[in-house]
């Protein structure tokens, strides 16, 4: 008797009681809180912020210019004047490492940015269109992914350098803009092209996978049943729910791009000296490792630290954003 008549009103008051414990809730705030609680992720985040800071302002605040040579003070071990010692040309290793941060950051963010753009576009089309379009795009990604990254980079680099060089010369001739004079931009662009070529299929597949998964989720079906237009489904349903893995992939990609760039520079097909990148510093340092190990250690250490930092941040973001963590 009491139960029947009071079903509606009683559920109202009881529902209120049932949820009294949880305060007003915000998705992103909760994710942020979870991220902050993860000590490893916080440390990584701090390191990355330091990196960005150094990339932006570093070369202006280092004690020495990264190019200036002091031939009297070659291969000096770390001292108070040179915190990380000097290299074989007397350049201050610390300043060069800091400049290397700029190189690494430019490359990493540009490469990941462009790869994401290409990958997300193609991946979204593939995921939503399905059928032959999807198959074709996947076929392309498979082909690209099956070529070894380094081989791809070397081929791209070697074959594109001469025409690039010529084009740069013509541009300078036409416009007289200094930038075209500097050979190292060619290096940079070629390197980034190669890296983008290598990286975009991963993102395409990731996005496609996410879209296909979410497309089949019950809540998307429910939205269709409500008559929500396709565009809105993409914006309100698919994208917000696929953000998690995408953000993680971005942070992992940044670390990966840095590492790959270093590998290429190490091999000589990336950024060429005298412009410092951690990779080419390691390469140069190899020759002197027996007598002056600091030339090798510092750039390697910093590279390793940043890669790990990105990795941990990625993990932390994954945990923070993962809906499975939520009470269910």
């Amino acid at each position, binding site marked *: 008797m009491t139960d029947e008549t009071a*079903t509606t009103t009683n559920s109202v008051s009881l529902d209120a009681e049932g949820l009294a414990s949880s305060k007003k*809730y915000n998705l992103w705030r909760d994710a942020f809180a979870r991220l902050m609680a993860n000590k490893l992720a916080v440390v990584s985040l701090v390191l990355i912020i330091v990196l960005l800071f150094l990339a932006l302002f570093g070369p202006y605040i280092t004690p020495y210019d990264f190019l200036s040579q002091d031939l009297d003070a070659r291969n000096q071990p770390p001292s108070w004047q040179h915190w990380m010692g000097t290299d074989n040309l007397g350049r201050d290793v610390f300043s060069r490492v800091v400049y290397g941060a700029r190189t690494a950051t430019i490359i990493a963010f540009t490469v990941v940015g462009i790869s994401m753009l290409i990958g997300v576009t193609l991946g979204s089309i593939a995921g939503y269109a399905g059928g032959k379009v999807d198959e074709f795009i996947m076929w392309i990604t498979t082909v690209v992914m099956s070529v070894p990254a380094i081989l791809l980079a070397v081929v791209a680099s070697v074959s594109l350098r001469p025409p690039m060089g010529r084009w740069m010369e013509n541009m300078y001739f036409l416009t007289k803009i200094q930038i075209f004079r500097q050979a190292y931009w060619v290096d940079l662009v070629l390197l980034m092209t190669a890296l983008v070529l290598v990286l975009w299929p991963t993102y395409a597949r990731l996005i496609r996978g996410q879209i296909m998964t979410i497309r089949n989720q019950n809540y998307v079906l429910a939205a269709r*049943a*409500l008559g929500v237009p396709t565009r809105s489904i993409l914006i309100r349903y698919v994208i917000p*729910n696929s953000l998690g893995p995408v953000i993680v992939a971005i942070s992992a990609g940044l670390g990966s791009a840095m590492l790959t760039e270093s590998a290429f520079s190490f091999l000589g097909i990336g950024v060429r000296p005298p412009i410092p990148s951690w990779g080419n510093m390691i390469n140069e340092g190899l020759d002197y490792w027996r007598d002056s190990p600091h030339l090798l250690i510092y750039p390697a250490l910093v590279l390793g630290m940043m890669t790990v930092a990105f990795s941990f941040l990625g993990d932390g973001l994954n945990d923070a954003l993962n*809906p499975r963590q*939520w009470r269910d």
Partner: protein
Amino acid sequence: MSIVKGSNSPTDSTLIRVESLVKHFPVRIGAFAETKATVQALNGISFDIKKGETLGLVGESGCGKSTAGQTILQLHRPTSGRVYYQGTDLTQLKEKQLRPLRTKLQVIFQDPYSTLNPRMTIGTAISEPLQFHNLVPKNKRGERVAELLKIVGLNPAFATRYPHEFSGGQRQRICIARALACEPDFIVCDEPISALDVSIQAQIINLLQDLQEEFGLTYLFIAHDLAVVRHISHRVAVMYLGEMVEMAGKETLFEKPLHPYTQALLSAVPEPNPREERGRQRIVLTGDVPSPINPPSGCRFHPRCPLATETCFKMEPTWNEIEPGHWVACHEVTSPDVDVQSVLANRQHRIDYKEKLKAW
């Protein structure tokens, strides 16, 4: 924009008319996504649903009842067949033309946990149809959402919360509120209570019935729980492996089932009455439900049917109106007076475990 009207004009009270609805799903495997097999989920079902009534659709897993619900709403496009809503043929409409009609044809799914977008507040979720179908001007939407939440028995203050903060029963109420926001005529309830606890199920059933009374809703209630279907439906249809085997008014179906499968189904349902249950002789079917990819020939039920004959193996039975309002698809049922019950009781092949155990 052409809207095809039904040829034989239905009576005013028929809201939904389904004619020979077929839905096959291709199974694509291989690098080039070739179709290797076909899941014959629906193999030609036909029925009417009248305004204001609840048609219960029962069957076991693989019978195609969920597919039926979704295909009727054109969430899957039928392979063939027609679905008429108030005379309009939905199968002929393009998605764009269909969209405005979707407000009238709503659905409540089984799993309240996955049918709400985890990244949207429930207030936003409920106001979506209001927004996209321009049902309510922007400044009035909040009010309407609050109203809807109250109707389903939830505190309107919860509109700013996210789905995971609610229990299963509450989430189902939210889904119901969302369906109601569209001001529908017809709601497909696809196993709306199966995922809920028993004590909550009763709340939702009562809520659905109250809403039907208050708003004059028509339901297609899909479930596997026969007791619930009996409680809430006016008429009941039984499906097996993509086809309809029997349909009748509630009382008729449960008191005088004619199809052997219906008999077995009803016989298998336990009742909370210990003395009766202990003495009860069940009609236990042997074997498992065959796969819809490879359905049996002729009558799909014949491998498990104690009454099966040569004809059943060769020919598919027709969907006959044995008596007014009572439809059956069975070769052996030729008139409403056929006493299937006793024939079944005599002929069923039940596994005698006791014998096997004696050897053990």
